[in-house]
């Protein structure tokens, strides 16, 4: 592939992100548009923003790569990523919006009336955010290496620099527009090349080089345990992702928060059609990528390989642009919500503190990303989901639906989950790749129930610590808002 193409696409997307971040709102309105300006964001727009923020490197590159490598088993990833929103819709979206708290630490402090719980939750949120940024940076490193031939660190560093500059310099004061733009960019960037490739293949009558086996690895399909564990991680993990939850506050009330979630389900379903198709196409027409260890780059390489020429270059540029949109938007969203949490708990919420926190939120994961290397984006993001599901999710679900939750129970649950899930990750590393037993490689199936059990047991043991405000908070969470006074 022509290196200039990748470089150009990257620069264009970075510039567009920064420009929209800074100037997206500079389009001044006059009083005539007052009503438009003071109306809240319509749900479909907000849904696009959530989609833009949620579809990360794992979805854009990782899913197709996994399908190329392991066939239908990999389909569980898109299913889980999407179905997590069903859980969000059913159990969390509306009550959380009604709570009036803006971050998960805010929510826990209001619900449990305890500063200590707030601090522990903040720690967990920051840990999850950092862990989640790392795979994004790996994706960027991979994309830069494949498309331009530059060393890997350039990609991760460039993404961090762009994000730091935009967030710390006071851009992203209205992140919804940026993220909504990114969703449609990502969708176009995946859909157009796939459709184009299909058309070219059909018109040339190219014969597939390989059949489309259900399970190409020949290692025997993954067992039921792995599937269940993965699904538990993805379903429950989505509930606790800090950058996704923040988006719901842009909705004016609980009902529109539900509607937004419903639209997100639709948008994600449409999106995941295309990585799946890419994976299948790669399996049939470019099976050699699986052997050369470049599976995650499949989406980037496919148009150049199958179409070629100027059209191929243009399509590649589009895909690279989409990939960087994915890295930038997810990283941006995470950095913004992390720096909100860090600046409030560490720097007292000043403007300067927010900038410092933004740099901190982006630079620490960069360090991790530069020290490590990965080949399986979807897998490592899956582990972050497992960690979230074992720590934040029990607190959030029980906090919303069970009045018996106490601060001691919440802390016990989070620490249990963090210890078990984190311990499994560390143990898995020490044993080396491929040697770890299945239950260590996919800890969610036991660490999530354990965290729930710990939360419930300790809460039952400390019944006298149930906060006095529980009735008030619960009714606020669950009673529908009174209709806004019908003013014209």
């Amino acid at each position: 592939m022509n290196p200039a193409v990748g470089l150009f696409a990257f620069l264009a997307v970075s510039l567009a992100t920064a420009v929209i971040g800074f100037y997206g709102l500079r389009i001044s309105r006059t009083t005539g548009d007052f009503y438009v300006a003071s109306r809240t964001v319509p749900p479909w727009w907000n849904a696009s923003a959530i989609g833009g923020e949620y579809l990360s490197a794992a979805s854009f590159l990782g899913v197709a790569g996994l399908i190329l490598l392991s066939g239908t088993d990999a389909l569980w990833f898109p299913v889980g990523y999407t179905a997590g929103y069903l859980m969000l819709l059913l159990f969390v979206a509306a009550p959380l919006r009604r709570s009036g708290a803006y971050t998960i630490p805010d929510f826990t402090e209001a619900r449990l009336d305890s500063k200590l719980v707030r601090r522990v939750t903040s720690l967990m949120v920051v840990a999850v955010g950092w862990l989640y940024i790392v795979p994004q940076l790996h994706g960027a490193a991979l994309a830069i290496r494949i498309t331009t031939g530059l060393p890997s660190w350039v990609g991760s560093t460039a993404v961090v620099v762009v994000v730091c500059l935009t967030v710390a310099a006071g851009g992203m004061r209205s992140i919804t527009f940026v993220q909504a733009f990114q969703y449609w960019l990502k969708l176009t960037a995946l859909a157009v090349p796939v459709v184009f490739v299909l058309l070219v293949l059909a018109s040339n009558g190219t014969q597939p080089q390989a059949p489309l086996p259900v399970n190409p690895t020949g290692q025997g399909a993954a067992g039921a345990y792995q599937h269940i564990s993965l699904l538990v991680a993805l379903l429950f993990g989505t509930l606790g992702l800090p950058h996704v939850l923040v988006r719901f506050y842009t909705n004016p009330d609980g009902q529109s928060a539900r509607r937004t979630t419903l639209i997100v389900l639709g948008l994600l379903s449409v999106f995941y059609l295309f990585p799946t198709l890419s994976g299948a196409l790669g399996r049939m027409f470019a099976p050699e990528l699986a052997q050369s260890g470049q599976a995650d780059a499949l989406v980037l390489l496919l148009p150049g390989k199958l179409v070629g020429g100027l059209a191929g270059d243009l399509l590649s540029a589009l895909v690279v642009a989409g990939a960087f949109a994915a890295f930038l938007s997810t990283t941006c969203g995470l950095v913004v919500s992390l720096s909100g949490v860090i600046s409030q708990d560490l720097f007292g919420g000043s403007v300067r503190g927010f900038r410092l926190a933004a740099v901190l939120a982006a630079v620490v994961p960069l360090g991790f990303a530069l020290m490590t290397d990965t080949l399986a984006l979807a897998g490592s993001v899956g582990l972050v989901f497992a960690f979230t599901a074992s720590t934040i999710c029990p607190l959030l679900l029980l906090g919303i639906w069970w009045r018996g939750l106490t601060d001691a129970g919440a802390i016990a649950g989070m620490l249990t989950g963090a210890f078990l899930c984190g311990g499994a990750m560390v143990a898995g590393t020490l044993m080396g790749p491929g040697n770890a037993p299945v239950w260590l490689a996919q800890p969610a199936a036991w660490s999530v129930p354990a965290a729930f059990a710990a939360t419930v047991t300790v809460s039952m043991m400390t019944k006298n610590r149930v906060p006095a405000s529980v009735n008030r908070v619960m009714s606020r969470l669950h009673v529908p808002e009174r209709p806004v006074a019908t003013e014209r």
Partner: protein
Amino acid sequence: MPDSPLFTAAAIAVIVLAIAVVVGVGLKVIRSFRDLGTDAERATYNTLHAASRAGQHLRGGLHPAGAAKASKQLRVLLGCDALAITDTDSVLAWDGAAEELRPTLMRLAAEVLDTGRTVVVPRAGHPATSDHGHHDFSAVIAPIRAGSSVVGSVAALAPAAGAGLVRATSEVADWIAAQLELAELESSRTLLMEAEVRALRAQISPHFIYNSLNAIASFINTDPARARELVVEFADFTRYSFRRHGDFTTVAEELRCIDRYLLLEKARFGERVQVSLRIAPEVLSTVIPFLSLQPLVENAVRHGLEAKEGPGHITICANDSGAFAEVTIEDDGVGMDPEHLRSVLAGHTDGDHVGLRNVDARLRQVYGDEHGLVIDTAPGEGTLITMRVPKSQPDHDA
């Protein structure tokens, strides 16, 4: 998949955590070896420390949660085997041994609550329980008096109730009563603040009503349709500003109110008032004090543009800024003298800019002193007013 950076990241996290624990324990050990003065000094410190910690828990009044935490500290203070705190009809907290006596305590305390005198009950333990190898406890029960009435009691249980324990227990009961009085003071201070906020609740200025009605009157003959429209706007505006319920509203509703206000002002000033808006949708649902933006816009029109020749421009911005929402209102009018403004905001000068002072005072009351209005201005240079409120306000309902 197991060879992912997450494992490494988690490993590093665990190591960092381990180091933190070791350092923390080390510091604790070192501190315990530090010279902390004579035994008497240490005893004084321990007593006062326990008392102040217990006091914090009682600052919310007599509640089971606070009483439970306080009773732990107080039991150490008295050096008895069990300590209980009751209100007038139930046992709020029990710390220490012989919890099986809890149901009988209210019966024993009835006399204390009735007469308001300290009572010593020798052998408070039920004969049946002492057969099971329990100690035979004596109880000292002292009343907690608030003003002239008894609001609860403190019971100290020990194998033998000497005069020392009796004296100490009634002192503790008096001390708890003092804490409760402080709690009451605290809550009346909160009430006072709420009342103050309610009193400060902005009202629309009489000038504005007078001017608007005059402007509408001038249209009745020349443009009846517009006059009718303006009357409806005026009605909507007053309905919003006279509403009774709630001290809080959302940025979106406040903006709608400003829209109506400006429509009415435009009827008077025509094209002399130009307004542009830059609103981030994220902050539209942020909760702010009722009528806290409209007075700022009114100030910009009244003191910025009215005195100026030619058209004036007002820019209203709302931005997302981390955990805060930031609203700025800027005009290119005649500006103000900063010294004069300072004395107005401090409440030394009456007259103009009352709206600004009112909003500033309410913001400080509700969110603390660091959230007052920030005003950049100079004569002839226009005015920029910035307001920063936390987005997360679970206690405030719009």
